[in-house]
């Protein structure tokens, strides 16, 4: 009797400690989840906080006199002359006119830096389009230089010592004067969405990289979807249980876990050096990403095929369809939503991938917007990588903005996959 009460006493004595341990353990778990979510929100908040300003760009209004003597001294209005004329000189002359008090060469050079080098291209386009403008005084809004843009957005501290700043005191004074004259305005940054890459942040855009991503993904989709579905159909429905089939399955499982950069090495050695395909082209990028996403698509497609109940197959076979007919007309249509979901997820992976593309030369600095799968180009994630390496402050916000665009695409694709699954999911 006494022995029994001693046991219960021990249990009771330890109870408080055990309860405390229980609570502690629970809290550890909650803390772990909270930490993960904090990291996630920190990531998103920091990207958005750094990037949202890139969607606006400051423009300055200048009144340019299209001087016929400078542009077209012979007055023939030939395109060859007009397209090579010194439009930069026009912009400089305009700036000198706006600030006549600027005399010394050093000050003038600083003055010229207020306006983006893109201004002269813009005027050139206008003149080429309408040669009538020559001899007139036109007022145009042109982008300001990236450093000035940073100043206007508050990323450069006006109160820091002048030597620490990229923007000098005099430039600040000029900018303030322009602001008071209401000649500086913030506008939606269309350049960012329509231009290719550039060394000047204010002229750099993501359209070139987006087009490269598009062509790469198209190649990937065209190749990986049919191949992936065919492989899944064979392995799930037709393959006999033998060594060869086992070997294929082992290979697929391992390929799913091979580091992506190794696929890049494969692309470099096989597609570029052996088959002599063009470097930096979306076609090679698409091929490499196809090999990389195939395991994902095959595994998802097999799961989709597995979820089609055997009764469907048996019914089709029972009324005399051949196994291939059963497959094509009955099982495949039912498995298609699942396969599409897997493919979209694989495509999202491919869209975010950059390491293997570095290997096959898609890191080049490319200004032109690619027109097809054989043109040299880069892709969005690689563009982000390139901009992240650039020292200019203005590229930090553009990198973040490009990341926001990329994430928006990824979220859309994943949402589409989830919707597809919800819409067509069937419980048998």
């Amino acid at each position, binding site marked *: 009797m006494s022995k029994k009460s001693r046991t219960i006493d021990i249990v009771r004595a330890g109870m408080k400690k055990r309860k405390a341990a229980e609570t502690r353990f*629970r809290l550890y778990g909650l803390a772990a989840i909270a930490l*993960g979510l904090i990291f996630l929100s920190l990531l998103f908040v920091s990207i958005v906080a750094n990037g949202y300003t890139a969607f606006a760009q400051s423009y300055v209004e200048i009144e340019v006199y299209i001087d016929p003597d400078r542009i077209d001294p012979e007055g023939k209005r030939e395109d060859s002359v007009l397209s090579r004329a010194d439009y930069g000189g026009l912009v400089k002359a305009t700036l000198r006119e706006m600030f006549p008090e600027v005399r010394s060469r050093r000050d003038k050079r600083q003055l010229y830096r207020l306006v983006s080098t893109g201004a002269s291209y813009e005027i050139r386009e206008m003149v080429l389009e309408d040669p009538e403008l020559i001899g007139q005084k036109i007022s145009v809004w042109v982008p300001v230089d990236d450093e000035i843009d940073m100043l206007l957005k508050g990323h450069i501290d006006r109160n820091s010592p002048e030597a620490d700043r990229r923007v000098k005191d005099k430039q600040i004074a000029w900018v303030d004067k322009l602001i008071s004259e209401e000649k500086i305005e913030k506008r939606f940054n269309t350049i960012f969405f329509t231009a290719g890459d550039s060394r000047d942040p204010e002229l750099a855009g993501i359209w070139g990289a987006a087009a490269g991503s598009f062509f790469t993904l198209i190649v990937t989709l065209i190749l990986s979807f049919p191949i992936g579905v065919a492989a899944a159909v064979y392995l799930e429905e037709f393959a006999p249980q033998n060594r060869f089939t086992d070997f294929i399955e082992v290979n697929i499982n*391992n*390929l799913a876990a091979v580091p992506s950069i190794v696929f890049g090495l494969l692309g470099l050695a096989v597609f570029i050096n052996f088959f002599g395909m063009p470097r930096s082209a979306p076609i090679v990028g698409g091929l490499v990403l196809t090999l990389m996403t195939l395991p994902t698509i095959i595994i998802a497609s097999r799961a989709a095929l597995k979820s089609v109940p055997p009764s469907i197959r048996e019914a089709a076979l029972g009324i005399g369809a051949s196994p291939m007919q059963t497959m094509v007309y009955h099982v495949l249509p039912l498995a298609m939503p699942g396969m599409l979901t897997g493919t979209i997820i694989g495509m999202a992976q491919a869209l975010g991938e950059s390491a293997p593309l570095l*290997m096959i030369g898609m890191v080049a600095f490319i200004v032109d917007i690619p027109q097809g799968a054989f043109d040299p180009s880069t892709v969005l*994630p690689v563009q982000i*990588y390139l901009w*992240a390496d650039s020292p200019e402050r203005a590229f930090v916000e553009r*990198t973040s903005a490009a990341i926001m665009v990329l994430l928006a695409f990824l979220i859309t694709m994943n949402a589409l996959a989830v919707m597809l699954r919800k819409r067509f999911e069937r419980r048998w």
Partner: protein
Amino acid sequence: MQLSFLLVVLLVLSSLAFYLGKKRAFQVSQGQIRNLHSLPAYYGLYTAIWCGIPALIIFSVWIAFEPAIITNLVVAGLPDEVRSIGPDRLNLIINDIKNLVEGNITSRDVDENLQAAADHYQSLVTTSHAALAVVVLCLTIVTGAITLSRIKVKQRARNTVEKVMTGILIFCSSIAILTTLGIVLSVLFESIRFFREIPLTDFLFGLEWSPQTAIREDQVGSSGAFGAVPLFAGTMLISLIAMLVAVPIGLLSAIYLSEYANPRFRATAKPLLEILAGIPTVVYGFFAVLIVAPAIRDAGGYIGLDVASESALAAGLVMGIMIIPFVSSLSDDVINAVPQAMRDGAYGLGATQSETIRKVIFPAALPGIVGGVLLAVSRAIGETMIVVMAAGLSANLTANPLEAVTTVTVQIVTLLTGDQEFDSAKTLAAFALGLMLFVVTLTLNVIALHVVRKYREQYE
């Protein structure tokens, strides 16, 4: 774009063959479809296959070997003194010829010989394409016509078509094998060339890594040391830090989600955590450079520690965040696979929930968790973008996480991006590193998959 036009013509002809074959089947059946062995569409497909596939095979083989043959012919046509200058410079000349043909900028002045060679090249390409077009079109028409004339009532068209389809399915499945083979061969061949120049032992056990090889004999400052130990050490250091972050957080959140959380909490928290897995690695790299590395440096400066701006800690920490969902979803699976009877048994003996988890469920799930962690380690080792952006380039042999270290993947990227000659030890070293990476991750994966499968069998 003459070739793509040829492909389109091929496609049109095949469709035509399909239509004709179907019609022909109707004809031979004399209006009685049930006399036919297969449905009429199968006769169409049968004709289309015979019409298109042989031509397509010829087409691909031709395209694959055309550049090499034409280049050889052009080289054979070059003057003797040009041919005798050795393969490297000959390659340059060939490149120039190709650039000239495509209207690009060449690296030298265009002289008569070069222009002549370019014209030769151009004419060869034109001839080759014209010949290809003739061959392919003739083949299409001949095979199509023969097949068409042979369509009979008792012909087993469906069986043939299905055999061809099965063949295509098998080919598509074998691409996985071909890929593995391609990876192994491409890294192996280049690595063997590398190890001919640098002994394997120097590579595996050398303590110094500075891959700048001399281009000229008299160049200074290019030692060309290829000892990979600092890279291995750096990779392991960063992976270790990543695991120290990812394993506790991932495991504890998996335990909470599967054992404690109510369904609603689970349904929101789990997908949110999995977003971390869907974020591209380049974004993590930018995050590390922009936020984490400066924060760690400032924090270190506060307590008087000197932290490198490309510290292993920053890269490892961010990589750990990336791997959290990987660890948590794998652990979640194995924890859920532990039979309910074991939990009930423990509760019946009076254990609290946490005691059950720590003393019953965790030991039971341990093999599966270990397998998951091994997979995560292989992910960490192969991860590229985060370390390329956030870790350093200099190969320090150190265990101090506050210093900059470099990794295998960083070195592969730096060795292979930018223009360099493909034969130098420097670029070949990248393939040797790739081989190491492939072997190590493959081994880890095989072990991990084996452990996980073994564990699953135990409870099924």
